[in-house]
C-alpha cells in the first residue's frame, strides 16, 4: 500500500502539520449553515402550509428531497475535511515536504533538503491569527527557485525554531560525516 510520502531508513519525522483547526471549523460552519437552509425553508413554508410537519404525501416528498440535499451537503463536508486533511507539511531530520491537495484531482508535492534552507520567515496576520496563534511559515531555499509556505499552521514561531534547529543539526551531522 502506498503512503503520502516515503521515509529513508535513517529518516525521522520531527513534525507533521496541517492548517489550524479553526480554518477547518470555519469552512465546516459554512457547510453546516447550508444544511440548515431546508429547515429554514420548512419553517417559512409551515406558515402557509401547516401540513408540512404532518404525514401528508406532499410533506413526505419535501422531506425526502431535503434528505437528498443533506446527502449532497454531507459529501461537500467530506470534501472540505479531506482538503484540510490531505494538505500536509512535514519536517523530517533530512528534508521539508509540502503536500498540497486541491479538491480531488490536483495534487502538488514539493520537497526541499534541509541543507538548502536559507531563510525562514514567520508571518502572523490579522486578529484571528494573533488570538488563535496560527500563521504562515515561509522557507526560502538557497537556489531561490522554491519558496515553501506552511500555510495557516498552529504555533508558527515554534515551527520556525524547529526548522532552524533541524537545519543546524543536519548541517552539523553532514559536517561531522565529512570530517571523519
Amino acid at each position, binding site marked *: *500500500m502506498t503512503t503520502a*510520502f*516515503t521515509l529513508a531508513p535513517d529518516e525521522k519525522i520531527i513534525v507533521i502539520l496541517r492548517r489550524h483547526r479553526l480554518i477547518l471549523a470555519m469552512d465546516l460552519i459554512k457547510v453546516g449553515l447550508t444544511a440548515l437552509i431546508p429547515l429554514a425553508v420548512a419553517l417559512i413554508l409551515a406558515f402557509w402550509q401547516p401540513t408540512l410537519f404532518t404525514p401528508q*404525501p406532499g410533506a413526505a416528498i419535501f422531506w425526502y*428531497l431535503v*434528505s437528498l440535499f443533506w*446527502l449532497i451537503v454531507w459529501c461537500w463536508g*467530506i470534501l472540505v475535511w479531506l482538503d484540510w486533511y490531505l494538505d500536509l507539511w512535514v519536517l523530517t531530520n533530512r528534508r521539508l515536504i509540502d503536500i498540497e*491537495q486541491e479538491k480531488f484531482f490536483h495534487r502538488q508535492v514539493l520537497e526541499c533538503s534541509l541543507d538548502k534552507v536559507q531563510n525562514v520567515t514567520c508571518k502572523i496576520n490579522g486578529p484571528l491569527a494573533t488570538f488563535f496563534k496560527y500563521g504562515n511559515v515561509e522557507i526560502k531555499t538557497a537556489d531561490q527557485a522554491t519558496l515553501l509556505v506552511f500555510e495557516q499552521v498552529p504555533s508558527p514561531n515554534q515551527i520556525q525554531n524547529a526548522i532552524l534547529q533541524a537545519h543546524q543539526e543536519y548541517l552539523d551531522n553532514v559536517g561531522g560525516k565529512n570530517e571523519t
Partner: protein
Amino acid sequence: MFFFFYLTIGLIVFLATLVFLAIALYHLFQYRLPNQSLKRPIIILIAASLVIALFSIGLFLTISWE
C-alpha cells in the same frame, strides 16, 4: 409518473454519492501517513453516509404514491 421522477432523482444522488465516497476513500488510502491507522475516519465517513442514505430511503418508502 411522480414515483419514477423522484425515484430517478434519488438514484442519481445515491450513485453520485457512492462514486464520491469511493474517490474519497481511495484518496484516504492512497495518501495515508506512514504508520497511521485510518479506522476512525473511515468508520465515521461510511456510518454517517449510511444513516443519511437510509433516512432518505425510509422517507421514500413512506410516501403514498396513489
